[in-house]
């Protein structure tokens, strides 16, 4: 040891040491958005971490108070752009519950199909970028290959690839295009083979296992304390899934399993998401079989038949209203309302659904005017991100991107 002693902290070997504050972000490729992490490091070990959010705050909740419900609807897509069908679902079903609007069963099935496809596309993007964070570039192209097919289906259906704005109060914007169900079935049936392909590349890869097994352990109690939900909590071994626990839409009419992990580490979260995609495939295939009316060609043919029968009744001098119409469950809109001036009655509702990231909630208060009195979004990412310091403190800095990536945080949903 040298005789010159500068005041400070010394290691056992007599080396002077000090904590290093590293500012990660707000612009950083691995943060999938604009997140800033003020990290205090002792060598490679994280001593403290303070997430700073709010860079993407676009005042979605304030905007709801100055727009009519229909005008507000397109902006919901931007709350969480990777799975915006879910945001639309909770918002639209909130209005439907307040106003007690009729929702045909066909609409519920269309919503389930689109939401599960959206879950697959969201998990695919997670899969690609998560491995990109770990340094594996090639999986991104595999994931985007299938994601593109889903986007093609969505584009046929809604006209948009990401910002769908497809659901309406009491229905959907337009019925499925003719032949869409077959296209969708074709894709969904071919998809499990693609998941096998991903798993062949990744699941037993020793480099991947080294980076993920036993890293970022999260137990059930910690999840409860921080409000972590979604695949992260299921990876701890607790089958907590709202689609099973408190079924909404027609989830009680389809059979599926809730995949769970065992240890709650990064690797388990990966396995849970991969298994969830397979379960989504099961759900979609059942929905495609069970959807009332089947392909839209059937619905159109039936509508024409009814119209012809009414014409015939009119010609015969009978009351055309006596002719039985199309089954109300076959319609794509339950009840026609003027969307631009629509005023739901006063009421309050809190709708929650199981989004790809966890429990997504929308709290809505209507005072009987055309604008909402209050809209509150509960994004799953908000709570999921808050657990990051707890997971990181005392752990190695190089594991940060593996752990953060495995939580699947979407920053626009955090900041809203």
């Amino acid at each position: 040891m040298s005789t010159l002693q500068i005041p400070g902290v010394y290691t056992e070997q007599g080396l002077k040491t000090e904590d290093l504050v590293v500012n990660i972000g707000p612009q950083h490729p691995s943060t999938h958005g604009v997140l800033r992490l003020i990290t205090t490091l002792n060598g490679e070990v994280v001593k403290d971490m303070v997430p700073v959010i709010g860079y993407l705050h676009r005042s979605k909740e304030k905007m709801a108070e100055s727009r009519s419900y229909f005008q507000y609807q397109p902006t919901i897509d931007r709350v969480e752009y990777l799975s915006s069908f879910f945001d639309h679902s909770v918002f639209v079903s909130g209005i439907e519950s307040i106003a007690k609007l009729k929702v045909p069963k066909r609409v519920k099935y269309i919503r389930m199909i689109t939401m599960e496809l959206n879950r697959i596309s969201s998990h695919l993007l997670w899969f690609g970028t998560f491995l990109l964070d770990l340094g594996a570039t090639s999986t991104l192209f595999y994931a985007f290959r299938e994601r593109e097919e889903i986007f093609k289906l969505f584009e046929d259906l809604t006209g948009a690839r990401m910002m769908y704005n497809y659901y309406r109060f009491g229905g959907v914007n337009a019925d499925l295009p003719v032949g869409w169900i077959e296209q969708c079935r074709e894709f969904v049936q071919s998809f499990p083979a693609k998941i096998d392909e991903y798993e062949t590349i990744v699941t037993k890869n020793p480099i991947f296992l080294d980076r993920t097994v036993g890293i970022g352990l999260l137990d059930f109690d910690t999840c409860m304390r921080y409000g972590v939900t979604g695949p992260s909590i299921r990876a701890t071994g607790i089958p907590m899934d709202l689609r099973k626990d408190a079924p909404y839409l027609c989830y009680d009419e389809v059979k599926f399993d809730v995949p769970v992990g065992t240890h709650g580490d990064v690797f388990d979260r990966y396995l849970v998401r991969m298994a969830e995609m397979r379960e989504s495939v099961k759900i979609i295939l059942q929905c495609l079989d069970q959807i009332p009316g089947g392909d839209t060609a059937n619905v159109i043919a039936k509508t024409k038949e009814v119209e012809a029968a009414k014409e015939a009744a009119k010609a015969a001098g009978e009351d055309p209203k006596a002719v039985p119409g199309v089954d109300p469950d076959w319609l794509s809109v339950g009840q026609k309302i003027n969307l631009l001036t629509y005023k739901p009655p006063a009421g309050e509702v809190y709708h929650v659904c199981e989004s790809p990231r966890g429990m997504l909630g929308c709290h809505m208060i209507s005072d009987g005017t055309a604008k909402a009195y209050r809209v509150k979004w509960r994004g799953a990412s908000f709570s999921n991100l808050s657990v990051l310091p707890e997971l990181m403190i005392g752990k190695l800095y190089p594991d940060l991107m593996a752990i953060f990536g495995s939580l699947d945080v979407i920053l626009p949903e955090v900041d809203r």
Partner: protein
Amino acid sequence: METPENDIQKAAIPEAPVNASPETAAKAPVAADIPSEPEVPATPVIPAGVFGSALAGAGLTVENLGNDVIGTEMVRTTVDDLLKVAAFLKDKQGFDLLLSCTGIDWKDRLESVYFLYSTTKHVYLSLRVNAVDDHSPSVYPIWNAADWHERETYDLFGIQYDGHPNLIRILMPDDWLGHPLRKDYKLNDPRLVWNER
């Protein structure tokens, strides 16, 4: 923009006192009490729900607000009893997950709303408390998830959560003026222009 809401309020308020018809006025001071009596059935007593009656049974202050349109029970307590109610709900009623905390500006008062979920019973509960002078106790000791959610409510509504470990702004910049989700927040305040601050 504000007129329809104001009209509703103005229409609702003056109803009660304007009942002094010549007949009742002749009956002198006793008559002054009469108009107030028929008003009691006008505000129907909301029956206590499952958790409302459980809370009342434990001797805690609780006001039943009925159910929302999909059947979620809503109860309101006071700032004095909030922590006891929260602990009771978590330990005895199994509400282990705090989904979100938010605020509502009712123009005459600020209300905090906690949404709770029970992972064993699969039910939701909306727990409310009216802030007193913009102050309310923090439920951070009961549910740590309240940390960020209460910071957000403080940021956007200005409700001060006493006992919160780190009550600073979370979504808005640290030097932001005012609390944006309040109904009296001015959107065109010139002080809010970034470059001039």
